[in-house]
C-alpha cells in the first residue's frame, strides 16, 4: 500500500471526525445526557482507530461503511438515551456524513477540471471540502435547540421515522451507480435528500415534545380531578359532622335541663356520660372555615392513626379569598409529606401546624419530626418515597399554586425537625 499524500489526508480526516461527530452527538442526543466519566471520552477514539484500521486493510467500501456505523454506535454510548433514539441519531449522522462526502467528491471533480489541472489533488480537495462542510453543518446543528424529550412513541410512527433515513441511504447508493446523470443533478438530489432527513428529525422531536406534554397534561388533569373529588367529599363530611355535633349538643343540654328538674340521678348519669363522650370526640380544628376545618380534621385522623401528636395554632376567618381546591392541594400535600416523615420516627412523633391570616396574607407553617435522613440533589429535596413520580406531581402542584398567589415557599431543617413554610398573597 502506498502512503500517498491522499492517504495522509484520509487519516487526518478520520481523526477530524472526532470533532464533528461529537457536535452531532451533542445536538441529537443531548448534551445533558452525557456521561461525564472521563473514560467515556475515550470512546471518541473509536472512530479514528476503526476507520484508519479499515483504511489500512484495503479501504474496501463495504467495510468502510460498516466500520463507520459501528464506530458511531460505540461513540453514542457516551450518551444516555433510549434504543430508538440512539438508532435514529446514528443513522442520521451516518447519512449526513455519506451524503456530504458524496456531494463533496462530485464537487471536487467539477472544480478540479476547471481550476486545478493536477489530478492527485482532486481527491484531496474533496476530502477537505467534505471535512469543512460537515464541520459547519455539525456546528449549525449543535446550536439549534433540539427538544430534550425522549419518550416512547407508538411503534408505527417510529418505523416511519426510521424508514426515512434508511430509504434515503438506499436512494444515494442507487444514484451513485447511475453514470448518466450530471454532477449538478446528483448534487441537487443529495442535498434534497439531506434536507428531507433533517426535517424529519425536527418533526420527530416536535412530536415527542407534543406527546410528552399530552401525557403530562392527562396526568395533571387526573390528579386535579382526584383532588376535586376529595375536596368535595371532605367538605360534605365536615358539614355532616358539624351538624351532627350541634344536634347532639342540643339534645344533651335539653336532657340535662330535664334531669335537673326531675332530679333523676340516672338520667343525669347518662347525660354526663354522653357529655364526656361528645367532648372526647376531639375536634382538632373548629375555625368554622369549612375548607381549613375539613382538611385539618381529616389529616388529624390520620395523624392519630400513626400516633403522631398534633398541635394547631390557627387564626383564620371563616372565609378566605383563596380557591378551596388550591388551599386543599397545598395543605393536603404538605401534611401528607409531614405525616409520611413523622410516622417513621422512633422517638417523638409530632406535627405542629400554624395557619395565620393577617393583613391580606396567608401564612402556613408545618413543623414535623423526621428521621433525619434527607437527600439533597442540586438544592432540591429528593423523596425517599418509592413512588417518586406522584410525589413530584404533588410538589409541582404546590409550586404552581404558590406562584399563582405570588407567594413563596421556604423549607428548613435541623437534625430532628423539618419546617415547611408557605406565604401567599390573597386578594
Amino acid at each position, binding site marked *: 500500500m502506498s502512503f500517498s499524500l491522499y492517504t495522509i489526508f484520509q487519516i487526518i480526516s478520520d481523526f477530524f471526525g472526532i470533532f464533528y461527530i461529537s457536535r452531532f452527538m451533542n445536538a441529537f442526543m443531548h448534551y445533558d445526557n452525557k456521561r461525564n466519566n472521563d473514560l467515556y471520552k475515550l470512546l471518541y477514539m473509536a472512530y479514528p482507530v476503526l476507520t484508519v484500521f479499515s483504511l489500512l486493510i484495503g479501504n474496501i467500501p463495504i467495510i468502510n461503511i460498516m466500520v463507520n456505523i459501528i464506530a458511531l454506535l460505540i461513540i453514542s454510548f457516551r450518551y444516555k438515551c433510549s434504543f430508538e433514539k440512539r438508532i435514529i441519531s446514528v443513522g442520521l449522522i451516518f447519512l449526513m456524513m455519506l451524503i456530504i462526502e458524496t456531494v463533496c467528491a462530485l464537487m471536487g471533480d467539477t472544480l478540479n477540471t476547471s481550476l486545478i489541472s493536477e489530478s492527485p489533488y482532486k481527491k484531496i480537495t474533496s476530502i477537505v471540502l467534505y471535512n469543512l462542510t460537515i464541520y459547519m453543518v455539525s456546528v449549525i446543528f449543535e446550536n439549534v435547540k433540539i427538544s430534550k424529550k425522549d419518550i416512547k412513541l407508538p411503534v408505527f410512527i417510529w418505523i416511519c421515522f426510521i424508514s426515512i433515513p434508511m430509504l434515503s441511504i438506499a436512494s444515494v447508493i442507487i444514484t451513485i451507480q447511475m453514470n448518466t446523470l450530471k454532477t449538478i443533478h446528483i448534487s441537487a438530489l443529495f442535498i434534497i435528500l439531506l434536507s428531507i432527513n433533517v426535517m424529519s428529525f425536527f418533526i420527530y422531536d416536535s412530536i415527542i415534545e407534543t406527546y410528552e406534554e399530552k401525557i403530562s397534561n392527562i396526568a395533571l388533569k387526573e390528579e386535579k380531578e382526584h383532588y376535586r373529588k376529595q375536596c368535595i367529599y371532605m367538605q360534605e363530611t365536615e358539614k355532616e359532622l358539624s351538624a351532627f355535633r350541634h344536634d347532639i349538643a342540643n339534645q344533651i343540654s335539653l336532657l340535662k335541663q330535664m334531669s335537673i328538674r326531675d332530679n333523676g340521678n340516672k338520667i343525669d348519669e347518662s347525660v354526663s356520660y354522653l357529655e364526656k363522650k361528645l367532648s372526647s370526640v376531639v375536634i382538632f380544628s373548629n375555625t368554622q372555615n369549612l375548607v381549613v376545618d375539613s382538611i385539618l380534621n381529616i389529616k388529624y385522623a390520620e395523624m392519630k392513626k400513626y400516633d403522631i401528636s398534633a398541635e394547631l395554632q390557627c387564626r383564620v*376567618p*371563616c372565609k378566605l379569598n383563596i380557591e378551596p381546591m388550591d388551599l386543599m392541594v397545598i395543605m393536603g400535600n404538605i401534611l401528607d409529606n409531614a405525616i409520611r416523615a413523622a410516622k417513621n420516627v422512633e422517638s417523638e412523633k409530632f406535627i405542629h401546624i400554624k395557619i395565620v391570616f*393577617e393583613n391580606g396574607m396567608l*401564612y402556613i407553617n408545618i413543623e414535623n419530626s423526621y428521621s433525619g435522613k434527607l437527600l439533597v440533589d442540586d438544592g432540591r429535596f429528593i423523596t425517599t418515597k418509592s413512588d417518586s413520580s406522584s410525589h413530584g406531581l404533588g410538589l409541582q402542584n404546590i409550586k404552581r399554586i404558590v406562584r399563582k398567589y405570588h407567594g413563596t415557599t421556604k423549607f428548613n431543617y435541623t437534625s430532628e425537625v423539618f419546617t415547611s413554610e408557605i*406565604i401567599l398573597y390573597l386578594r
Partner: protein
Amino acid sequence: MCVIRIAIVDDILEICSCMEKMLANYSSKTGETIEVEPYTSSESFFKALKNDEAFDLIFLDIEIDEKSGIDIANHIRNIMDDELQQIVYISGKMEYSIRLHETHPLDFIIKPIQQNTVDKIMNRYLKISGRFTDNFTYTIGSDKFKIKLKDILYFDVYNHTTDMHTKNDMVSIHESLKNLEKELKRYGFIRIHRKILVNSAYIKEYHYENVVLYNGEALEIGKTYHNDVTSFKLDLFREG
C-alpha cells in the same frame, strides 16, 4: 422604661384575676412595669374609653355581654380611629369571624389561657411597642424637631426631596431614604420602593403590587422590592 398599660375586659371575674396574676408573673420575670385594669362589663370599659383612658394593650373577651366585644373593638378602630392600641381577643371557641379579623388584633387566644401564651403575647407586644413610644428627630434649617414614631405613616421621595407623611400633615426633610431606612428599620419601617419607606404599623393589607394603609392610601411596591416585602412579612409571621 415606660409603663405598659393593659386593660382586661371580661365579664367573668375569675378570668380577670387570673390574667392579672399571669401578667404579674410576666412582669417579675422580665422586669417590665405593667399596669393592669380589669373591666367586667362593656359599659364600664366604654366609659373608661370616653374618659380618654388610653391603653397599650387590651385583652378583650369576644363573648362579653352577649357578643358586644366586637362592638368595643369597632369603636376603637373606626370611631376613635385608633389603629395603635393593640387588641388581643379571648374566646371560648376557635371560630374567628371576618369581622374580628377586620379589627386587626394582635392575637386571638382560646380559653383556658396558659402562662406561656401570655408570655408569648407580651414578648410580641414588646417587640413592636418601640414604634409607639419612641421619637424621631429631624432638622429643618437650624431647628430641631421631634415627632413620635407612631405618628409617621411613610416617607417618600418626590423631586429629590424626602417628604414625611404624618396623619394630618406632610413635612419635607433633608434626609436620604437610605439613612432613614437604616435608622428606622428596627422600628418596623420597611422600604417597599426605591422612593418609599413605610411604617408597617399602618399597613392594613399587603398585596403583591402594593400595600394599602389604614387611611386608604395605596403605595406601590417597587419591582426589586417584592422579595424584601415578602421576607419582612414572613419574619413577622414567624415571630407571631
